[in-house]
Every structure is written in C-alpha cells, then in structure tokens.
C-alpha cells in the first residue's frame, strides 16, 4: 500500500555518530540532586542527517544478553541494546500476563477454627503451587466462568485437618505442637486429588504441591477442625496477584562510575567506603603512572588509588557526591540501554522460561493485532 511510490533519490550520506557520542547519548547522568539526559533520542529526525530508522539487522548486531545467575527460582541477566519501552513490556508481561494455576474456588464444608472462612480462603488462595510442567503448561487449559469443571481446566485439592489432644505428650510440655495433633496447619497438609487424565501428568515428582510446604495456614486447638475442597484454575496476574508467576520481576539500569581525576591515599579509602563492597578497589600507583606528566599521579608512586572494580554492584546511593573531596573527581550515571533483570519465580515456571514466555506473549499479541488491523481496513 504505502510503499507504492519509492523515490529513487540520490542516497544522502548519513552521518554516523562517533563512539564517544553514542556513549554520551546512552548515559543517564546522575547528579547530586538531579538526574539529567533521561529520555532516549534514537528516533529518525532527532539528529539531522543521522539514520535512526528501525533496522532489524542493526538491532540484531547491537542487542546482547548476558546471564549472571540462572537458578530455577531465581535468574539474573542483562538485556543490552533495547529501549526502555521494550524492556518494560517484557517486565510487565512477566508480572501480569503469564498464566499460572492458583486456588480460585473453595468449598468450605467445615471450619471451626478461629480464622474466619473468608480470611482462610484468602490465605489459601495466595499459596503458590507447583507440579509437572508439561501438565501445567500444555495439558491444563483456561477455565471459562460457568463451565463445568473438568480434568483439563480444574485441579481439585483437599484440606482436611482436625486438632486433637496428644495422649503421648510429655507431661511438662507447654508447646502446642507437642500437646496437640495438627495444632498448626501447614501448606503441606493440602492434598492433591487427581481427576481423570490428571493422574498421568501429575504423579510422583510431578504431583501438584505447594512450592513452599512450610507456609503456616492456620492454628487450631483440640476440637477444632478444617475441612474443605478447593478448585484451582488458570489465571493471570492482572486479575489477581496470586496468579502472577513471579515474586518479583524487575530491572535496573547498569550503573556507571567514572573517576575523572585520581583519588589517592586516605581519600581513596574513604571513597571506597562510599560504595557497597566490591564496587571500588584500591590499587598501588605504578612507577609508569607516576612518571606520566599531567596524569595526576606524579610523585605518588606506591600510594593507593581508587579504581572501579564492578559498577554493577553499586546501588547508586550517591554517597560519594556528598563529600567535597570528591567534587568534580567522579561522575555517576546509568547506561540507558543496559537492563539488569531479576526474575524470581514462584515455582510454576523456571525463571528463564518466564522471560522467554513473555517474549512469545508480546510476539503473539503483535501478531494477533496485525491480523485485526488487516481485517479492519477491509
């Protein structure tokens, strides 16, 4: 449609910004009281003569992923070379749009404990569960409101506990856990009731169970009992936080610390203390450095100087900007296109799989809307 008239104009030479200029544009300045250079400017027409149009090959060259940690329930990685709007879309999708299974309906047959039905129900709903991934992600489908619960859209759980006196308790004991059976009701007391084909997907190590078995659900005394059946459905975090697959999914921008002028001796030690451990290191000024004129190291051979070891560990507290001795000697910033993600799974997905799923989700969304836009025009 739009590409009908492609003018074959003489190619205008496009200006390419120098690496220093790119670096400058990609840094958010963090000053003592303000932040500056905050918005991204990589759009066509912003810098005359430069080409900032969307180019997938250029994007492919620039974008990088670096892993720092990848455990099932906690992953940390850097996504470098994307805009905040894209990085934020992935983060938001991880929190609010990736489906998980959680307790949604409770049939309370009996509850004589002191914790009220609705409060108990709320507590149960928030317990994260895990189980066989194949069954959770592929076999189980959405439950439509009003639909008959079936093996492919509902998971049944049961909690049946009764508190009784422990006849064998030591006579001098004052601990309720010794004196009574089931004085404390834990998440691990919830039992999965397989229905239909569920036995195939959720048995043995794949059984549906609480991720953290020791969550305290209620306390009871002899004579009290809790008897209830629960239905779990799939849902998304935008409906209720209990459906969110992550405890946290967040990112921060990579901090930068630039030492502009040498910080030496006592000052260096003080400077190191302005940052968390491992951010600033102390090194001896070498002979060569001391020889160099105008380096600021002349006559300081053997003294300690402050060097940046690992800016990523910095919390950007800006403490160093509060001291006059470091004035104009250090510059703090953040890299605009370097996102350090922290994804903590609640157990139904592997942490890295949540991020992958968020990418797939965004793509799927764009694909669906593309179809709808085509239909809209027809």
């Amino acid at each position, binding site marked *: 449609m739009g590409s009908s008239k492609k003018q074959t104009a003489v190619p205008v030479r496009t200006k390419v910004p120098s690496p220093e200029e790119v670096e400058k544009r990609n840094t958010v300045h963090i000053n003592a009281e303000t932040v500056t250079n905050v918005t991204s400017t990589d759009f066509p027409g912003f810098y005359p003569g430069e080409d900032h149009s969307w180019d997938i090959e250029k994007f492919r060259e620039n974008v990088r992923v670096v892993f720092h940690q990848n455990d099932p329930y906690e992953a940390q990685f850097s996504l470098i070379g994307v805009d905040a709007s894209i990085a*934020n879309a992935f983060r938001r999708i991880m929190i609010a749009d990736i489906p998980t299974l959680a307790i949604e309906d409770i049939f309370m047959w009996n509850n004589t404990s002191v914790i009220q039905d609705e409060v108990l129900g709320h507590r149960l709903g928030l317990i994260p569960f895990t189980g066989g991934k194949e069954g959770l992600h592929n076999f189980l489908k959405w439950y439509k409101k009003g639909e008959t619960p079936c093996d492919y859209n509902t998971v049944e759980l049961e909690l049946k506990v009764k508190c009784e006196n422990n006849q064998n308790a030591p006579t001098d004991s004052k601990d309720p856990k010794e004196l009574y059976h089931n004085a404390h009701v834990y998440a691990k007391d919830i039992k999965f009731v397989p229905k239909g084909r569920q036995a195939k997907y959720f048995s043995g190590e794949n059984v549906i169970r609480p991720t953290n078995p020791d969550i305290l659900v209620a306390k009871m005394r002899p004579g009290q009992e809790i008897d209830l059946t629960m239905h779990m459905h799939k849902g998304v975090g935008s*409906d209720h936080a209990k459906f969110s697959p992550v405890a946290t999914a967040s990112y921060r921008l990579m901090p930068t610390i630039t030492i502009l002028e040498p910080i030496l001796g006592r000052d260096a030690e003080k400077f190191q203390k302005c940052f968390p451990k491992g951010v600033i290191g102390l090194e001896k000024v070498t002979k060569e450095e001391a020889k160099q004129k105008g380096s600021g190291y002349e006559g300081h051979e053997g003294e300690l100087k402050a060097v940046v070891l690992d800016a990523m560990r910095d919390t950007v507290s800006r403490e160093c900007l509060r001291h006059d001795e470091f004035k104009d000697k250090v510059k703090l910033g953040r890299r605009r296109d370097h996102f350090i993600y922290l994804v903590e799974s609640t157990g139904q997905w592997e942490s890295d799989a949540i991020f992958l799923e968020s990418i797939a989700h965004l793509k799927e969304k764009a694909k669906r809307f593309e179809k709808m836009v085509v239909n809209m025009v027809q």
Partner: protein
Amino acid sequence: MGKITKFGDDGEEVTMKETPTSHQPETQDDVSMADAGEEGEEGEEEYEEEGASTKVRLLPGSTPTAASFEFLEENHTLGNALRYVIMKNPDVEFCAYAIPHPSEAKMNVRIQTYEGTTAVEALRKGLRDIQELCDVVSDKFLEARNDFAEKKASASA
C-alpha cells in the same frame, strides 16, 4: 449502562453480559494465547474462524495519513512498545499513545505520517517490527542461556 457498542458491527448495540466478578480471560482467543508458544498454529486458526471479534478500530475523524486507533483490553505494555517502534519509522511524523481513563480498558494510538504512506500501514509495520524484535531477543536470550549453562557445567566438571 449495561449496553455496549460491539466493535466491527457498525454501532449495533448488544447487551453487555453480566459483569464478571473475575477478570479471568473468558474468550477463546486467550486459550490460543496460553498455548501459543508450544502448540503450533492449529488452535489459533480455529479461533479465527469462529469468534472474529476485533479489538482494534479506527476512531472517527481520521484521514489516510493521520489516524487514531482504539485498542481494547490493552495497556501500557503494548502501548509504549508500539509507540516506540512506530516512532522508529522514518515515514512517521508523529506517534503517541494514551490511556484516556484508567477505569476503561482502552488504549489509543495516534499516528500521523508523511505523504506516501498511511497511518494504517505505519501501524501494521510497527506490529510487524515488534514480532521481528521478539524473534531476535528470543534467539539471543536462548543463546546466552545455553552458553551460561555450558560454562557452568564445564566449570563444575
């Protein structure tokens, strides 16, 4: 209240279903969404044929090169990402998105283009670019993850 205008039906009014107590997705298309990653195309095709309700429409007052679009049940997640890729299009003069009211699940995108293309085409390109972008990020992520796992395995061995 109680009546809404159904999209794609030229303003014909239909009774809104009773407000659900839960915002859980009820439509079939969300089903295809959930297993889209793993299960191939079959499920989606089915949906396309039966319930073809559209969630995007052109707002009144549009011209070919300047148009506003209304997205239903979308928020900042798609809005800001879409705004960014559309702004990256050199044929686009202006692009912005807004959520006019927080209690209405609607997101508007405004696109103005230079002569030679249309706002609809710019929107389509934006949506296509997002898909391309996702593929690249996905590839890079998998690559980095596997490298990391290999490194860890060789370090412990």
